[in-house]
């Protein structure tokens, strides 16, 4: 313990570089947004203190609430799309099987690719004239099913969510696979001797044993899909007619197109609070269930 006493200075020197960058560029921005959220400011002119005006205006803007709804839509679609598909695939692949490694490699691949590249690629797949999906439907005689996938408010949100699900299924697939491989085979063998069928074993033994991983995956999935911005920005930029607009797009639009920095800061705070709240609530709910 003698090294500690002598070395307060060393500890300080060791922590300060990381702490400084982290505080200035990660914590301070949140404090800054609190300050600016009470201002009306176009970025270069004079600032005007407006009290809670920005917050009130946001709360009264139906487009903001539409964005909140779309955010929740993305979260729900991700949780109920990504997690079950990933779990089913992991259960299928959790055995000795030829080519298992290849399936795993391919399964995880989209997770590594940049969101912008994925968005642009899917834009082309969805393109109403040259896109793969419509051309394919036409060529198999289902031309009546073709849609303007990203241009039609009815379909745009669904199309965007499919891409989001596609992008991240692999992540949860690998997480579940790792968890499944930690389930001791003796337990399953014992259950087999007791006469538990395959389905029963999965339902009553395997799933409860990896419940913690499922829980973590769901929380990860919620906080991840709350962050959706890049993908929608590149694919639809919130359109058509705000049908795919999420909170972050709304914030970007108001700040950098309408040049309202105070208003944008207030939206940032809403996002911050909503996100933390949703993560906290989901953690609470899921943890209770697991007990």
């Amino acid at each position, binding site marked *: 313990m003698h090294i500690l006493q002598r070395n307060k200075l060393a500890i300080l020197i060791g*922590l300060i*570089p990381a*702490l400084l960058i982290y505080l200035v560029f990660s914590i301070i921005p949140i404090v*800054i947004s609190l300050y600016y959220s009470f201002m009306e400011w176009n970025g270069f002119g004079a600032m005007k203190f407006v009290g809670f005006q920005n917050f009130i205006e946001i709360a009264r803007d139906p487009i903001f609430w539409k964005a909140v709804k779309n955010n929740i839509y993305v979260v729900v679609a991700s949780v109920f799309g990504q997690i079950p598909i990933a779990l089913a695939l992991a259960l299928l692949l959790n055995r000795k099987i030829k080519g298992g490694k290849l399936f795993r490699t391919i399964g995880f691949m989209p997770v590594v690719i940049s969101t*912008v590249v994925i968005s642009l690629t899917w834009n082309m797949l969805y393109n109403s004239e*040259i896109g793969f999906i419509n051309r394919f439907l036409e060529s198999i005689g289902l031309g009546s099913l073709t849609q303007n996938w990203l241009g039609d408010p009815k379909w745009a949100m669904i199309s965007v969510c499919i891409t989001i699900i596609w992008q991240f299924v692999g992540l949860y697939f690998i*997480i579940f696979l790792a968890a499944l491989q930690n389930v001791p085979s003796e337990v399953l063998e014992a259950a087999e001797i007791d006469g538990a069928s395959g389905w029963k074993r999965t339902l009553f033994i395997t799933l409860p044993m990896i419940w913690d991983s499922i829980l973590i995956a769901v929380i990860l999935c919620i906080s991840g899909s709350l*962050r959706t911005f890049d993908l929608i920005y*590149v694919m639809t930029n919130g359109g058509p007619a705000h049908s795919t607009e999420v909170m972050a797009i709304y914030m970007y639009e108001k700040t950098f197109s309408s040049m309202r920095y105070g208003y944008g800061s207030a939206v940032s705070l809403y*996002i911050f609070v909503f996100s933390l709240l949703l993560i906290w609530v989901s953690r609470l709910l899921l943890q209770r269930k697991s007990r």
Partner: protein
Amino acid sequence: MESQLTMKKNTKTDVQSDKKVNIKRFLKKPIIYIALIVFSLLNVYPIVWMVINSFKSEKEFSLDPFFLPDTWRWENYVEAWETANLGTYFLNSIFVAFTSVIITVLFGALASYFLARFRFKMNKFVYVLFVFGMIIPIHATLVPMFILMNKLGLLNTGWTLLFPYVAFNLPLTIFILTSFMKAFPKDIEESAIMDGCGIFRIFWSIILPMSRPAIATVTILNFIHCWNEFSFALVLINDESLKTIPLGLANFAGQYNTNYTGQMAGLTMVIIPTILLYVLLEKHIVKGMTAGAVKG
């Protein structure tokens, strides 16, 4: 006598259920394979479709978007590379990603060393403060980050992106490294001190080399994050000569949205290095990207 009978019965049903199991097993394999193959096709085909069509002329693509091209037009690639300014974007991305990864890992490892190996009053508080960064919603900081960078005169410079990238990658880096370094036995430092090593010397020549597997994980993880990052670049960088690949590509696609095969050639050039890197370092990448989840 009776017990014998039941035994017989039992063996009979066993044989029957064995048969059933066999049939099930026989059917099971193909079904599993079909499901996995469908999944793999869904994962790979969008990319393959793009690569195939990137070699076609605009006209050929509009006639036949499904099969291999008649002639492989490499010109598309030359053209896309030049019109999209990909060379500049690549250089910028390489600089930003490498520099921020080096800074993050170095500062992160140093901080982790003190957080993991030393006892002091604020230890727990500082650690929790860092780890809290993992749940800060990044896009909620875009606007204040822009205002802050504007005030600091750091908009649109070659260094701009390093600051948010380092700041937002430190939490996970410190989280992973601290838990790794905590597992080392206590007497390492003690014997080193006996030999007259200073604190930073211990870090540099003992702790750092011992942490190599975890360092590899966070390095790759941070690299992928920085390489793919879009939101901060969008908000903080305007200058064409400073744009990174994701930002440049988003622009390029917006401007040339009628030249589809050219766009595909551009995207292919960006996607190929990523996939190659992934295939080469798969184990590390997967480990890194799931580390937060598995330990969290």
